[in-house]
């Protein structure tokens, strides 16, 4: 007889190594989705025990208690209590502890016990604890807690064997004894009493040497130094952006050549006509121009995941807390804002770690001003077409300097907007507290990092295959139909729907120096910024033929003035052109109003910045 699926839930404090245990148990058999109604990430994985039992395991958000102070923590509480809508009550809760730091987890476990769910305490990272001379009397601990205890080393092969065996053991006996739920939110006195009880049990069962992690202390001496720490942070950011632009180039060239060759192949194989034009101009040059940026996206996520896994992100928040506080931001906003350089969507979702509503809202509103990777295609294209690749002062590349300027403008405007929000709108709030555990450093786990990067890359490609692809089909259609009448001498595109629409909007955009081709590209560009590049590619390809498709940069250089190019760059620093970001803002703030506010303020800034840039450039003779 086939046994029903066994439902496990992983609960633990932040930094307890829950996620690496989850990865060790399930490998790549993971499903990442959202809980219904909230944007808390729901991670479920599957595995089979040694005795052949099918298991589903859910990695719940880290929490110090079941009080549920944030949406994340509420999910953990409701899930364990069986109150989460559409979720099965877990058959067995795995309470995961960092073996080097048991105090907070044992207290959480004592609270969890009151829910009556069957439970195992997993002493994770047991190897690190042993190396530091921490010894745990596992049997006695199990006796005192009244909960089975097992040690595990999630990051080592076979390190979860005991846990798997125990799971088999316990699941065979489950459901024999239905338990009662006695949980209620703890009062301060009960919380204190629980911590005392936890400390007493630890005193009885665990011997702690007076030897803290010397590596962490040594690294922190530099990394958390008031001045040295900021220099280190700046260096890390510098290397990160250097990597995104310099290291990704060879791979990007490779992809670019690949798509060019594919386009050539289609051009040579198929007879001239609509199908050839559709495949070469619509599909390959359109989608290809976006996929080319995959290496950069992989590199930026690689850095962010590495820093997070290493334990550095919390330090960055510590260093930046007061500095960002000057602009009305919380130290914890640093991580979401840094992630926003990859993409504002994970950045905005990461604001959930900020428990104060006002701080969270401010961070959400400015996150889209951080230069995300989708702007890179637009910036790279225009910069390489219009800015000469010469050195200034002998060693700084002018193109790199312009790119840096665009990033810096984004950051400075974000801080300014945040300051204005604090000053005019939400000034009556006392500063929210900043309380954050600084975990011991640990070697990043290649497997976890690889899984994380893989998930992000898949999401990006999925988007390229759906949203961007359908937009490209639309653009190609608009730019190709209706076909020119026989004997027409003007380029075919002048007769198309795209030209009609573009010319209708052109008067609005003429003051900022945009022509009708840009107007056309901006419309599908609402779906995603990088689409604009692809759309320009398609529009000019259909207008100018094959050479234009391959050399969109040099075509732009002949069709646009420098003032128009600079105006376009200024536009993209601010333009709210990303439907997914706006959708996430709506979801995370639960309000159409804040979404509309974000859209409006960014659009106004974009138009104003372009207007100023264009007119100044024209006045200086770049028109």
């Amino acid at each position, binding site marked *: 007889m086939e046994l029903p699926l066994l439902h496990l839930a992983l609960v633990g404090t932040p930094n307890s190594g829950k996620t690496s245990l989850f990865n060790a148990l399930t490998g790549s058999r993971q499903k990442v989705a959202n809980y219904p109604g909230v944007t808390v990430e729901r991670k479920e994985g599957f595995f089979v025990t040694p005795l052949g039992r099918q298991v589903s395991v859910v990695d719940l958000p880290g929490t110090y208690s079941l009080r549920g102070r944030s949406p994340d923590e509420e999910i953990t509480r409701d899930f364990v209590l069986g109150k989460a809508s559409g979720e099965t009550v877990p058959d067995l809760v795995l309470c995961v502890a960092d073996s080097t730091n048991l105090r907070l987890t044992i207290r959480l476990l004592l609270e969890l016990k009151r829910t009556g769910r069957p439970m195992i305490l997993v002493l994770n990272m047991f190897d690190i604890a042993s190396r530091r001379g921490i010894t745990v009397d596992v049997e006695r601990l199990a006796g005192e807690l009244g909960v089975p205890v097992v040690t595990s080393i999630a990051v080592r092969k076979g390190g979860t064997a005991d846990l798997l065996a125990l799971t088999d053991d316990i699941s065979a006996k489950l459901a024999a004894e239905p338990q009662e739920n006695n949980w209620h939110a703890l009062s301060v006195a009960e919380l204190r009493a629980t911590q005392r009880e936890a400390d007493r049990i630890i005193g009885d069962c665990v011997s702690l040497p007076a030897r803290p992690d010397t590596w962490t202390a040594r690294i922190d001496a530099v990394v958390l130094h008031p001045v040295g720490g900021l220099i280190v942070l700046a260096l890390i950011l510098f290397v990160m952006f250097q990597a995104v632009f310099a290291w990704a180039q060879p791979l990007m060239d490779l992809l670019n050549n690949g798509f060019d060759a594919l386009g050539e192949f289609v051009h040579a194989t198929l007879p001239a006509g609509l199908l050839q034009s559709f495949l070469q101009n619509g599909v390959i040059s359109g989608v290809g121009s976006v996929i080319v940026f995959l290496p950069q996206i992989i590199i930026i996520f690689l850095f962010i995941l590495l820093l997070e896994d290493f334990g550095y992100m919390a330090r960055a928040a510590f260093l930046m807390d007061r*500095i960002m506080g000057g602009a009305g931001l919380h130290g914890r906003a640093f991580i979401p804002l840094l992630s926003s350089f990859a993409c504002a969507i994970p950045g905005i979702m990461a604001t959930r770690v900020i428990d104060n509503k006002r701080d969270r809202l401010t961070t959400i509103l400015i996150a889209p001003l951080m230069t995300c990777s989708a702007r890179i295609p637009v910036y790279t294209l225009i910069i390489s077409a219009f800015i000469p690749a010469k050195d200034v002062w002998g060693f700084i590349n002018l193109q790199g300097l312009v790119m840096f300027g665009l990033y810096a403008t984004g950051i400075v405007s974000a801080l300014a907007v945040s300051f204005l929000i604090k000053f005019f709108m939400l000034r009556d709030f006392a500063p929210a507290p900043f309380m954050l*555990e600084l*975990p011991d450093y640990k070697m990043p786990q290649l497997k976890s990092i690889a899984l994380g990067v893989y998930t992000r890359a898949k999401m990006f490609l999925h988007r390229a295959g759906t949203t961007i692809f359908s937009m490209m089909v639309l653009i190609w259609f608009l730019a190709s139909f209706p076909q020119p009448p026989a004997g027409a001498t003007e380029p075919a595109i002048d007769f198309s729907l795209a030209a009609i629409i573009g010319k209708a909007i052109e008067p609005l955009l003429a003051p900022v120096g945009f022509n009708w081709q840009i107007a056309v590209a901006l419309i599908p560009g609402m779906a995603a910024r990088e689409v604009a590049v692809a759309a320009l590619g398609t529009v000019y390809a259909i207008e100018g033929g094959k050479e234009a498709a391959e050399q969109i940069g040099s075509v732009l250089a002949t069709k646009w003035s420098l003032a128009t190019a600079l105006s376009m760059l200024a536009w993209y620093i601010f333009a709210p052109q990303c439907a997914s970001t706006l959708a996430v803002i709506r979801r995370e703030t639960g309000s159409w109003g804040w979404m509309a506010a974000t859209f409006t303020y960014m659009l106004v800034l974009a138009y104003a910045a372009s207007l100023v840039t264009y007119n100044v450039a024209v006045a200086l003779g770049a028109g």
Partner: protein
Amino acid sequence: MTDIHDTRREMPLGLAQRGYTGIIQHLSAKDAGSALSDIELESRLIELGFVEGARVEVLHEGLVGRDPIAVRVDNITIAVRRREAMAIIVA
């Protein structure tokens, strides 16, 4: 207030310099002036291990206004602003 630790003066952790070590005597959330309610602040401090009898050491200070501080609480490190640390009375 005097008690068994009368060899050292009681003070809020929020005023401690880098390198200070001491033992937590009690929590006094109402003196902190935090944006959190007293009960919420006290609960959070306990959840992060700031309970009576815990050994604390101020390891690091931020650049601006020597704030926030990184505090070793028994065997973990917690970053906290001085404003909230005013609720932690040490000696």
